[in-house]
């Protein structure tokens, strides 16, 4: 059974009289353990797609099954639970709480599932150590570099051991050196069995994945496996 399955998915924004079809009839499946890159020009609907997969948004039409659950039928609490436990979302713009320390930011998902304080702190510290930020735990986002913020965001996405990691242009704001560090980290995660879906503009980054979905004007234009010989990173 596929982990993610969409059938004829539409997402239409209504702007006054005008209708913008950000996604048009997207049908696809992603299996557990896959590493998928989504590519496409700006405005083609990549973020829209990620938001739907991440249960942050609801489709205008069509169906989406996540782990065999029909997402349309889930209520607000169930969606919150999925966002909390099953999905780790790394946003293009980090989306960290500006006033909170790195540690508190990473703790956040654990707060909402009722993890006791001591355990929560241990888990958050471990996640920060994994992204090499053990010595920056008490820094606020404004006291961290772009790459460090991105890593805090990744630690937060991973702290709950989600089965799916969704990353929307995780290296969009980073220099090539930091980008490489982050991508190496993703490679490791994939190695450990996580399902990863990442959005990117850069072919170089996309070649870390095993499969590339190209989106054009809201439709899937191509769906190709990356031959092993062309892959980047350690595999």
């Amino acid at each position, binding site marked *: 059974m596929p982990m993610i399955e969409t059938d004829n998915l539409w997402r239409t924004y209504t702007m006054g009289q005008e209708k913008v079809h950000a996604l048009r009839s997207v049908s696809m499946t992603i299996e557990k353990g896959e590493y998928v890159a989504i590519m496409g020009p700006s405005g083609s609907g990549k973020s829209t797609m990620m938001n739907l997969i991440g249960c942050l948004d609801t489709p205008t039409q069509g169906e989406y099954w996540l782990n065999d659950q029909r997402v349309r039928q889930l209520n607000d609490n169930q969606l919150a639970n999925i966002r909390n436990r099953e999905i780790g979302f790394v946003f293009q713009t980090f989306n*960290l709480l500006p006033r909170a320390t790195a540690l508190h930011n990473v703790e956040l998902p654990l707060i909402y*599932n009722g993890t006791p304080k001591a355990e929560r702190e241990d888990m958050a510290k471990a996640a920060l150590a994994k992204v090499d930020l053990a010595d920056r735990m008490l820094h606020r986002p404004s006291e961290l570099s772009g790459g460090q913020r991105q890593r805090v965001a990744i630690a937060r996405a991973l702290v709950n051991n989600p089965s799916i990691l969704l990353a929307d242009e995780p290296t969009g704001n980073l220099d090539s050196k930091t980008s490489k560090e982050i991508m190496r980290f993703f490679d490791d995660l994939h190695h450990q069995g996580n399902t990863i879906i990442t959005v990117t503009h850069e072919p170089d980054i996309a070649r870390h994945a095993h499969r590339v979905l190209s989106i054009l004007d809201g439709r899937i234009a191509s769906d190709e496996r990356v031959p092993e010989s062309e892959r980047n990173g350690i595999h």
Partner: protein
Amino acid sequence: MVVFGSIFRIAGAALWANKLRSGLTFVGIVFGVTSVMTIITALEGATGAIEKQLDTLGPSTFMVAKLMSAFSEEEFLEKIKRKPVSIRDAEIVEEDCHLCEKVSPRAHGGARVKYGDKYIRNVDITAGTANIVDIVDFEVAQGRFHSTEDDLYKRRVVLIGDDLREEFFEGVNPLGKVIKIGPEKYTVIGVAERRGEMFGESQDGFAIIPLSAFIRQFGEPRRRGINMLIKARSVELLPEAMDEVRVIMRTIRKVPYDEPDDFDMETADSILEMLNNFTRMFRLVMVGISTISLVIGGIVVMNIMMVSVTERTREIGIRKSIGAKQKHILLQFLFESVMLTLSGGVVGIILGFLIAQALAGQIDMDIEPSMLAISAGLTVSTGIGLIFGIYPAMKAARMDPIKALSYE
């Protein structure tokens, strides 16, 4: 539970992060609650003191006098022209009233009291028959009250209030000592239990003598007249006893059937009621003003919370995107508004009590923290936080995660 504790801390941290804004709102609530508490506590305290005083009269006792209350100057001028109530009236009532257990005529006067070379001016001289002690709840600390015999033989004996004992007999046994009331000599036979102060006036600067001795010295009070304390046979019979006394009094004083009474008749309860009627208007106005100030405080809280929710739209989006439920967000903002109003309420209650106490101190009255005022203050301030905080909190809880995240 862990979740709620954490959310509580998050709410506290957010208030702390916006110190100035939270502080101003807090001060607003403190002002509102302080004014309400001052008024409630002061009113409660004053009424309580008077009630305590009236409680010394039993529930089956009533009073008859020429003039006991007047609500206007005309009424007062009308009543002051009445014929005084005389000792003779009291004697007839005592004889004819079957539903009355005891009738005790009393007279009041003021005189200079002297012992050795010490003296006190204008001491309240209360004169009564021996049975007054059965009606008024007097505690004798030392010695005794005058007897029927003392009254019969017009003996010059006196029971003194504690102020007199303190002034004249500090460290000495007052019993058997002779003091002078005006020019006449009286033997001290008893000392009353200390009664303390009310509205800044000592309740212990009095002397009680037999009514017969009073008349022998001062004559029957011609203008003020005497008053009667009457105890009905039982509480149930009080209304009938009052009716009976009314009929007897009207007959003695030859009041035509179509004229109103030419005397006042009150129970302790009716005196209390008069008092309450008097303070009710005052209370209503004050409660009105306080309600307005609290509603304004509530609107300020709501406004601040709306600003806060709008300002923190992205934060709400972030929290929802990583798994916060609607109830978590709702609670976070409700905690914030209730923390603001409740802490303002607690400070307001304390300040209000201190101010009421300071005011009461001006007139030497002692007030206690009123449970009613405290619980009203806590309920009202929590209520304001909930009522005016729920709309902003719901607005926050219902935000769409994606829209909130992309809010600029």
